């Protein structure tokens, strides 16, 4: 019988070696960043033995870089560190909002952006914010690093595009230009501690006249994966983000949604509310974009 094992490599190469070795031996291997989802899964869903590879000790998964051109967020940085980073909040307030919404203060002490993304939940709070801000996954692979847009990283419910032996190092972004800002809103029945019933991440760019020149919209918990909604972005681009444009974008989100009914909400409800969230998030992003202009 396979038993549990735990490894906490200190370099990327060591981590890749452990993955290769254990997977090669036919063992089940699971990469752990914050571990807040993994621990619950092991308790409630599948407690079967595995090798747990803890990637919290790697420099690359802990690096937070706010460069002049590029932003890099290590995959294992706990939410509490990201929300406390003023430069990051200034650049990507919507993403930080999404991070901040993952669980309680206690969860924030452990849960990471990388874990939330790799977990690939349809309701993952950060994923739509990452898509809206055009995040790119930096993946450690046997042959070196490879990159992939967040949009194509999540491939199904709980499924990501990592191949055996790979793991996520971090996510990078173009530093938002002047006049660009993001926002993320989700709906939950309480004020905290729930999984999103629906969510919307929006990034908009405004020119000097207040006209929207670029936009990205992504919605959560209304389809098997977080999805980008180009039709909603199109409704915003070229407008002054007036009520009519917001309404059109909201309707585009509702139309793009293909939700299910479950313990967290009905399909009809999710479809309606995701449109509301898109509108409200866009208004927040627009307000922020004006301030940065």
């Amino acid at each position: 019988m396979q038993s549990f094992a735990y490894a906490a490599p200190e370099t990327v190469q060591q981590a890749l070696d452990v993955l290769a070795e254990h997977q090669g031996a036919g063992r089940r291997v699971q990469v752990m960043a914050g571990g807040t989802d993994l621990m619950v899964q092991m308790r409630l869903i599948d407690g079967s033995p595995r090798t747990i590879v803890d990637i919290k000790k790697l420099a690359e998964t802990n690096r937070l870089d706010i460069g002049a051109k590029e932003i890099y967020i290590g995959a294992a940085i706990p939410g509490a560190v990201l929300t406390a980073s003023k430069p990051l909040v200034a650049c990507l307030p919507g993403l930080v909002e999404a991070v901040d919404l993952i669980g309680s203060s206690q969860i924030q002490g452990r849960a990471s952006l990388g874990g939330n993304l790799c977990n690939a939940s349809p309701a993952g709070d950060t994923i739509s914010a990452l898509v809206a801000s055009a995040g790119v996954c930096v993946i450690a692979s046997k042959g070196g690093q490879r990159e992939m847009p967040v949009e194509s990283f999540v491939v199904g419910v709980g499924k990501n595009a990592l191949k055996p032996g790979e793991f996520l190092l971090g996510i990078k972004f173009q530093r938002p230009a002047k006049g660009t800002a993001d926002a993320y809103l989700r709906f939950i029945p309480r004020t905290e501690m729930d999984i999103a019933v629906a969510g919307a991440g929006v990034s908009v760019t405004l020119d000097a006249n207040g006209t929207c020149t670029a936009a990205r919209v992504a919605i959560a918990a209304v389809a098997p994966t977080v999805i980008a909604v180009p039709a909603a972005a199109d409704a915003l681009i070229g407008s002054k983000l007036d009520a009519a444009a917001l309404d059109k974008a909201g309707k585009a989100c509702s139309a793009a949604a293909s939700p299910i009914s479950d313990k967290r909400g009905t399909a009809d409800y999710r479809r309606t509310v995701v449109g509301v969230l898109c509108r409200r998030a866009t208004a927040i992003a627009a307000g922020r974009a004006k301030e940065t202009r």
Partner: protein
Amino acid sequence: MSEARDYKVIGTRVIRPDGVDKVTGRANFGADFSLPGMLYGKVLRSPHAHARIKKIDTAAASKIEGVYAIATGADFPKVGHEEITGGEGAGDFADLATNVMARDKVVYHGHAVAAVAAISSAIADAALAAIKVEYEVLTPVMDLDAAMADNATLIDERLFTAGLPQKPTKPSNVAAYMEFKRGDIAQGFAEADVVVEGTYRTPTVHQGYIEPHACVASINQGGQATIWCCTQGHFDVRSMTSKVLGLNVADIRVIPSEIGGGFGGKTTVYLEPVAMVLSKKSGRPVKMTMTRDEVFRASGPASATKCTIKIGAKKDGTFTAMSAWLAYEAGGYKGSSMAPGAMCVFAPYVVPHFLIQGYDVLVNKPKVAAYRAPGAPQSMYACESLIDDLARQLKIDPIELRLKNAVSAGSQAAYGPKFNAIGFKECLEAAKKHPNYSAKLGPNEGRGLAAGFWFNAGMQSSAEVHINENGTVTVVEGSPDIGGSRASMALMAAEELGVPYEQVRVLVADTESAGYNNVTGGSRVTFATGMAVIQASRDIIAQCKQRAAATWGIEEELVEWQDGQAIPKPGVNADVKPLSLAQIAANSGRTGGPLLGRASLNARGPGPGFSINMADVRVDPETGKVDVLRFTAIQDAGKAIHPAYVEGQMQGGAVQGIGWALNEEYIYDAKGVMQNAGFLDYRMPVASDLPMIDTWIIEVANPSHPYGVRGVGEVPIVAPLAAVANAVRAATGIRIPDLPLSPPRILAALEAAKA
């Protein structure tokens, strides 16, 4: 009996005696106890909501190294039918026995079918996985409509409805029918200018105590056993375990730990008899704890209900007739809190003509247990919602409408007797004056108001008061302290004896060290056990007077007790100095031995409790989300012994009620499997969901208690459901009769109203 007097310590906000241990982590709760050589017990639970057990194969599990005992229904004795002489919802010992461990049939998802004890919990898990159970799966019956349908699948083929005027000819899922009536209901409705009617549903909800059930049981080869557990009633654990296992009561010692919440849910047994069987078979102590998932699936939630209420009234608001049709889910075994629900539904009002019909109905859900004022929140939610609609229709202020019909001393309660002094009108008058009743509301905001009621309970209690050699005091009692009752006991002993509060310590003792006490429930402890503490303290005073008289060589009648010392009565010509409790205690060996006061009683006259709650909410018209902006709880406590803990009961009950109103519910799939058996998706209120909960304590003394105490623990959960629902009605203009008022339900109603 109630004595008007100036109190020295009663009514002060002292620090509770068990407080330091609780803020430092020293206090030992149910799962904190361990014994050397202890095994870990775990339960295999049914994956089906309704099935016959055809075969259980434990052979493979028993071969696993480290497994010391396996138990199934075959290891438990057959228990005959016998009513459990508790209150509502308690049921039958035969049902209790099969609820603890299924025999031939499982009646809910999560029902215990086997248990193992192993050297570690990991090995116990492996052993559970190796037990093979063959089931014949039956159709689950998951709600009242399905259960009460003519051709319903029967959960118990031998169950015939009790209480019907005519004996039923065939079995059904309706375990019991009950009727209460007065006057002529048809005449009453004929006299009405306005008749309103509504049907309301409430979901299955859980008490939500944060501490899962836990125990350690150890039974020796001679049949003598000790159980350490978290319970609201260790004497009940003893009696129930002895019945379920056929053991001698005197052979079972139950030691209560600190208890991490109960709210009625820890008034029965689940793990204790199982741990005993495993301990007997293994010859070692066995520890069992429930996971949160097990707590939701396999302890005792509160009934889902369907209630139809009809009210007839004159134009001026006077009620002429009321009727109620109430159906309560019991779970897989009979015994819901339908009867108290039926007795409470119209209790706050004077009604000349009424008819109340109640049904106790089996469904394939866990057997319900008591939950804070069991039965009352559901039926009174329905009635108080309808009264709100009636007030609107009659254009009468909801407080005035209730005042017009409110019961007061001398009114005949719908459940029978005439009320003695009660504080319902006082609560209504206070609400009228409360600034929150006239606070301004903004757009999409609404205010709701509702009344609450609970009988409160008396029952059996006993207490001892020991005077230590330096005059300090130890109170020994047997009512597990869930909400700070040791502080109240110490206050009452200090008040009587005339000593500082800090000199009194209180011990909740085990079944072999304390006299018998009924369960901590029914809001009875401060009232009844407190009465025992007062009487035991008076026993001490009588003894002290006698010792002082003997010391002074005067007649006992010439001594009185004042401010903690014996003094000669005014006018008595004796050249003596007062004797303090400490002096008498120090001299006790010379005057007849240690000072030991005792009292045991069956407390009569627990004063009924009333409340008024007001909620202000804002409803987001686009998402249906409800935010509670203000909440005001006004309640008659009779006399608040420790006001901070009375407020705490009011605030905690308010928030449980808010949760019940807004988001809490058991969600089942078509196969009868609960989908949200965890705190993540059961959605109890969290700190950021709430405002401060404003409280006003009203004190209309209960004439049957020396200090005027009424129970305060249960009333607080009754009114919030309708207060919140009425506020949502006011904010949206729409009456949504079914709880919870979750965002999808509200948004759907808003959209339906638009269309």
